[in-house]
């Protein structure tokens, strides 16, 4: 069903988080001001990316990464334009020129660079095409999104947006229960680790900010990144005196009567 909208309403970080958590397979198409980006995912991991009409061939990627000289790149373009990236990769590996790891690392960096550029887009229609996969002749990778999401969140500057996302610093944080996520595999900055060390339902975000000597903007930025990556979630502050309603919820204090009241409501609603 329609996963579509505008970057005015969703950041790229939020979209990547959705794709990551939902283990989506398909292609995210984002129409920017002057070009269209296509980013493919398999099971929630980054698989391939293409920015506009830029040359994303393996030869171009390796040339940009300075693994191929300009002469070699030109030669490949002239004489080997008909072979696929996979075939070219195998040729280079078999020739002992590059290793498989070299090729995958350069491709991952290239796709990561495209995502980094996307983080700067604040306007543009997007939609997710479940049926679209990377071209068969291109090499796919398998890149975890958590670090990309955190990096993207680091770049977020709009104070108003942060305030919207985290309206109150009097909430607490707790770690999410996501199997397979190991904090040790996530790359966090020193400041982010400092905040993580205080994550506890007994500590409000405000208290964490005070302990880590961060201002409102800094703590919101870090907490937002952790929230978007799905590492933490907000929770009601464990020690806080939640505002007791001045008006009683139930007419009676008796638990049995309260339960009976709810059952009467259920019976009545069912009969409507």
């Amino acid at each position, binding site marked *: 069903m329609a*996963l*579509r*909208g505008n970057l005015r309403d*969703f950041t790229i970080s939020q979209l990547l988080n959705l794709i990551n958590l939902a283990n989506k397979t398909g292609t995210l198409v984002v129409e920017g001001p002057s070009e269209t980006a296509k980013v493919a995912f398999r099971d929630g991991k980054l698989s391939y990316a293409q920015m506009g009409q830029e040359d994303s061939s393996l030869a171009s990627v390796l040339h940009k990464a300075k693994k191929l000289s300009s002469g070699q790149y030109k030669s490949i373009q002239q004489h080997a334009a008909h072979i696929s990236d996979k075939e070219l990769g195998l040729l280079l590996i078999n020739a002992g020129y590059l290793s498989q790891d070299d090729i995958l690392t350069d491709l991952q960096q290239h796709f990561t660079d495209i995502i980094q550029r996307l983080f700067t887009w604040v306007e543009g229609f997007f939609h997710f095409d479940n049926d679209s996969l990377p071209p068969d002749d291109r090499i796919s990778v398998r890149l975890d999104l958590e670090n990309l999401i955190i990096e993207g969140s680091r770049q977020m500057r709009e104070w108003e947006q942060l305030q*919207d996302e985290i309206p109150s610093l009097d909430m607490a944080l707790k770690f999410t229960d996501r199997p397979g996520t190991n904090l040790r595999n996530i790359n966090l900055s020193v400041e982010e680790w400092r905040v993580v060390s205080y994550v506890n339902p007994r500590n409000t975000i405000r208290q964490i900010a005070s302990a880590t000597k961060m201002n409102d903007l800094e703590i919101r930025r870090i907490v937002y990144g952790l929230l978007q990556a799905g590492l933490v979630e907000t929770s009601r502050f464990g020690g806080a005196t939640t505002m007791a309603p001045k008006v009683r919820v139930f007419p009676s204090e008796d638990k049995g009567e309260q339960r009976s*009241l709810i059952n*009467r409501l259920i019976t*009545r609603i069912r009969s*409507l």
Partner: protein
Amino acid sequence: MQTVKMVITGPFSAGKTEFIRSVSEIDVVSTERKISSASEKLVKEATTVAMDFGRITVDDDLVLYLFGTPGQRRFDFMWEILSEGMLGFIVMVDSTRPETFREARSILEIFHAYAPTPYLVAANKQDIKDAWDIEDMRHVLRLDTKVKLISCVATDRDSVKAVLLELLYSILSEMENGEK
């Protein structure tokens, strides 16, 4: 006569008034005023300024009131008042307007802070072609798996009943868990 109340909240034009209208035995009491903001006019013609108010008589001794909060943020001073003494609340979200999801998230957090009562989120307009998938909405709204996110069509009485019942089941469940 005993009275209890539930609050229906959510962003502007999420379907709160229609939700209450579908099950209320009285005409939904709303204070209609002319829209003052041009952008709001684009979305719908009339909006409630004070609050929506609906009623379901359970029996001779018990009445359920449904209160709908005004959707615009400039009336948020009403939210705290309306949330006092509520059994639980429902956050309505328009599944076809993703630009309102962030607002819905914010409203949910504010109400949750007002009162530790059971709540659920109703993904309204699920009958419309452009509606977002429920599970995608869960991720974007950052809802814990324990939070009920229910498909809803606010103009359909059976759908509204189902949402109300789910909230009541949650209230009952919390009462039972609290006694253990």
